[in-house]
């Protein structure tokens, strides 16, 4: 009932999805159709079904939901291990991003059982009986579980995530007290996986203009960096009814961050800074 950290998977589920039709409000080309079932190999012992979103851009067909029966005794412990097993043993066309397999690169971010997390740090034992795997929400899909992140990265470059100072660079480092350095903790660790942004309902409705929690967390990271001198200009660029103020403190972001960061708190900090500078 009380979630203490974002890696906690709730024991009970009242509602798996909102009570809406499966393809509610979805454009014709995005409608998900029923896909095929891939049966478990013969002699499989511990079998679990995974429902995985598939989309083939070359087929001209709509996306579909395939069911894979997986022998858990042949896979590693994580959802990513299952995906790799499926790709190597069952269907080699299954496409997904992956790299570090230890939760630090952000490549394998996807929607597992209705919430966004990294496939390489989600235990299979924590997934539902019929686990569902979708790509990150509200993103154009390139193929299968690979979203097109061009727009969200463009929003990231919009906030100019680099040090801006008129003071010429000193001979050695730009000095920072331990207290000032502590301000960056909880912000620099972001791996830009975009689990939070794709899980934000406000970003679903206004993806074109609302920057989203990931980008705003990084904006906060540069606002609190004591070495940065362009705080005022950064705040000017953020003060916009859409860029910043589409955040209604829904807090899906903090709930879903696979690194345990707190974008909601950072955005509240930005809003407080906005008030502080005019009062």
């Amino acid at each position: 009932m009380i979630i203490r950290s974002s890696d906690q998977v709730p024991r009970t589920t009242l509602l798996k999805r909102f009570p809406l039709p499966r393809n509610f409000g979805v454009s014709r080309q995005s409608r998900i159709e029923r896909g095929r079932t891939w049966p478990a190999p013969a002699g499989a012992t511990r079998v679990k079904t995974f429902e995985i979103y598939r989309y083939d851009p070359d087929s001209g067909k709509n996306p579909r939901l395939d069911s894979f029966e997986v022998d858990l005794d042949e896979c590693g412990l994580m959802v990513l291990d299952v995906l790799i097993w499926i790709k190597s043993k069952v269907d080699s066309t299954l496409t997904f991003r992956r790299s570090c397999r230890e939760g630090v690169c952000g490549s394998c971010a996807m929607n597992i059982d209705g919430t966004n997390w990294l496939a390489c740090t989600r235990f299979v034992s924590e997934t539902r009986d019929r686990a569902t795997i979708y790509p990150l929400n509200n993103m154009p899909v390139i193929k299968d579980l690979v979203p097109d992140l061009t727009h969200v990265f463009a929003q990231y470059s919009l906030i100019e995530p680099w040090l801006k100072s008129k003071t010429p660079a000193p001979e050695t480092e730009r000095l920072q007290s331990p207290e000032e350095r502590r301000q960056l903790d909880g912000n620099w660790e972001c791996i830009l996986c975009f689990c939070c942004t794709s899980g934000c309902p406000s970003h679903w409705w206004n993806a074109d203009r609302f920057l989203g929690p990931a980008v705003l967390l990084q904006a906060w990271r540069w606002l609190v960096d004591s070495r940065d001198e362009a705080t005022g200009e950064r705040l000017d660029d953020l003060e916009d009814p859409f860029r910043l103020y589409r955040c209604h403190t829904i807090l899906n972001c903090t709930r879903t961050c696979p690194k345990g960061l707190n974008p909601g708190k950072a955005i509240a900090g930005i809003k407080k800074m906005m008030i502080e500078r005019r009062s």
Partner: protein
Amino acid sequence: MSKSSARPLSPHLQIYRPQLTSVLSFAHRLTGVTLGIYAIALVAWLMAAAAGSQPYSIVQNFMQSLFGQVLLVGGIFCFFLHLCGGIRHLLWDTGRGFELRAIYASGWIVVAASTLLTVAAWIVSSILAR
């Protein structure tokens, strides 16, 4: 760029898991808009009272009918949910209560407090009506 316009959009509201965070936030918005409709009723009630005792008693009789009472209790619940949720929002605006444990604890407190306050208001008004 024609490729990207042909690309399907991955599902969001259709498959995302309802959580306390998103559900309470939507409830806050829904009760807010509903209270806006009740605000119209408030103005109508005041205008009826200003018009005289006849129009006022028409409104009073409606409020005492079964349908009126259902609307009243519904309105009181919406009011307390939006009030408690609003206080939670104001706390967040001061920067407090953002750890996940606090988010969930305060969320359940809002649900419990709204229900209890609605029941309390109903009981008190029933007692006073005697």
